[in-house]
């Protein structure tokens, strides 16, 4: 009887064994670039797509889910006649991420005509196995290209023109500042500034944030003491817009529906404002939590007029896996875009005006210059500054 049972059970056990060990061994395969990724280029694109490397991209199954790890490098050539200062690629994966979209940007570059450059795209996609795939898994499109004269090409579906214009404006501000330091204080002064920037970046502590629309964030703690917390505002010297007052609903580690009233103090109409948002925890530590932007479609703020920034989202803050209970909030104007497309960012002097602003992360360009100093030395940094 035992032998008969064992004979019957053996295939079952072997099948079960195969199923248990399958996630570890096998069921992984490398991806075919041609069928997995589609690069869509507009006919008049100033960038020519040269090649794509899929690296160690692979597909695997985990339980009832299909997991795709894509590690791509896309090589482009500047096919136009102007120097490229920034590129944003739109990444569409509608089957995997309904309700959202992604992009990868490369700011602070200086690509001459005919020069090639590479952009990395690293994505992990998970979806139920049962869900049928139709067409390529990932679609890559150019959302925008910013040139050295601030002209722009692209559909701008993600407002990448504004983002890249701000980054380039900050980059010009910071390069001018470090050049001035070099002229005024020499190599020693520039080195001290770089060391200061690196120390600031190392001290910069940030929060983990979960964000959702229309209601409470997933996993938030909701103590009884839910309340409305007022913003305190830092006035930035030279800011064309003044935050008048604002508040957000606070419950524990969650802030909901922030609302900020602003006044246009400049002589030009404004179409976009962003308020930097700092939060203080129970121990008194301050963090740059995020920003409260004004909608570009709804807002055109004439000189002397007021408007309200009303994003309808919930943000849940945590740090190293623990909720950060919010005890206070501070706001300051960090970016302004006028109706004519010109932008304002705080000056370096303004950023030094308050100790609170030291918790801000350095700009992308300052981070890049500090990286050159750290990896290649002061001579390479000076050479880089002199390129512009």
């Amino acid at each position, binding site marked *: 009887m035992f032998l008969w049972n064992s004979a019957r059970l053996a295939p079952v056990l072997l099948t079960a064994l195969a199923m*248990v060990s399958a996630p570890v061994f096998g069921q992984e395969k490398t991806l075919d670039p041609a069928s997995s990724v589609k690069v869509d280029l507009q006919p008049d694109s100033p960038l020519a797509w040269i090649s794509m490397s899929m690296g160690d991209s692979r597909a695997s199954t985990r339980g009832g889910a299909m997991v795709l790890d894509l590690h791509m490098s896309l090589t482009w050539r500047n096919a136009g006649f102007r120097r490229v200062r920034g590129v944003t690629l739109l990444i569409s994966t509608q089957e995997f991420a309904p309700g959202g979209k992604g992009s990868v940007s490369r700011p602070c570059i200086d690509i001459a005509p005919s020069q090639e450059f590479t952009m*990395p795209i690293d994505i992990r996609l998970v979806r139920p196995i049962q869900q049928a795939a139709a067409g390529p898994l990932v679609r890559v499109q150019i959302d925008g290209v910013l040139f050295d004269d601030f002209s722009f090409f692209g559909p701008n579906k993600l407002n990448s023109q504004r983002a890249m214009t701000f980054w380039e404006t900050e980059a010009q501000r910071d390069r001018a500042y470090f050049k001035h330091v070099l002229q005024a204080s020499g190599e020693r002064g520039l080195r001290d500034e770089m060391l200061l920037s690196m120390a600031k970046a190392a001290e910069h502590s940030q929060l983990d944030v979960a964000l959702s629309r229309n209601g409470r964030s997933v996993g938030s703690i909701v103590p009884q003491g839910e309340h409305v917390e007022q913003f305190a505002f830092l006035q930035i010297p030279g800011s064309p817009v003044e935050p008048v007052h604002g508040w957000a609903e606070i419950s524990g580690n969650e802030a909901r529906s922030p609302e900020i009233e602003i006044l246009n103090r400049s002589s030009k109409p404004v179409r976009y404002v962003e308020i930097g948002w700092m939060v203080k925890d129970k121990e008194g530590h301050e963090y740059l939590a995020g920003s409260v932007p004004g909608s570009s479609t709804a807002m055109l703020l004439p000189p002397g007029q007021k408007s309200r920034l009303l*994003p309808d989202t919930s943000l849940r803050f945590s740090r190293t*896996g623990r909720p950060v209970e919010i005890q206070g909030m501070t706001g300051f104007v960090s970016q302004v875009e006028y109706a004519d497309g010109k932008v304002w960012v705080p000056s370096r002097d303004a950023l030094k005006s308050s100790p609170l602003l030291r918790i801000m992360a350095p700009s992308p360009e300052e981070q890049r210059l500090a990286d050159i100093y750290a990896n290649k030395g002061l001579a390479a940094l000076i050479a880089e500054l002199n390129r512009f």
Partner: protein
Amino acid sequence: MASHPSEIDLALFAGDDCGMVSRYFLNRHVRRCAQCAAVVAQFEAVRAEMDMPPLPDVDWDRLELEMRANIHLGLEAGECVRMAVPRRTRDARLAVAFASLAIVVSAGFLMKRAPVNDPSAHKTAEPVLESTGAGIELRNGASSLTLMNRHGAVADQTVSAEGQIRARYIDNGSVTINNVSLE
């Protein structure tokens, strides 16, 4: 040692969450591979730092009653089968199999029903955007998209209350900014 287990398998191994056979093979690999042993140690350290997550809001008493009732039902069904075919001697096993199946089905039914009655569960079906050490994750039900930092680079993350998270990192001297936004 040509190929290594994936990070997911190592994470499951570190959390003692993989199957017996997987565990055996992973354990054998980790004992011989310093690189994977280090990864497992990191996962264990992170796990140790984290609090246990709260239990789901389930009526355990009701669940227990349902399961007991289904076990009885399964056993009774087994008895019926035994009476109908008295010459077969392994029918009790069949009954146990039916009972187990009934438990699985009823548990699945209860678990599927629970979110309907729980208002907070509706929120999990909405897209949620979250910054993690590895990158930015957009979850929507069982599907997700994560834009990751290359080579595990440490990124500066900025959050916009308009519904987007950006992660910025340096790779080979160039700045890359990943951005994921809610629609």
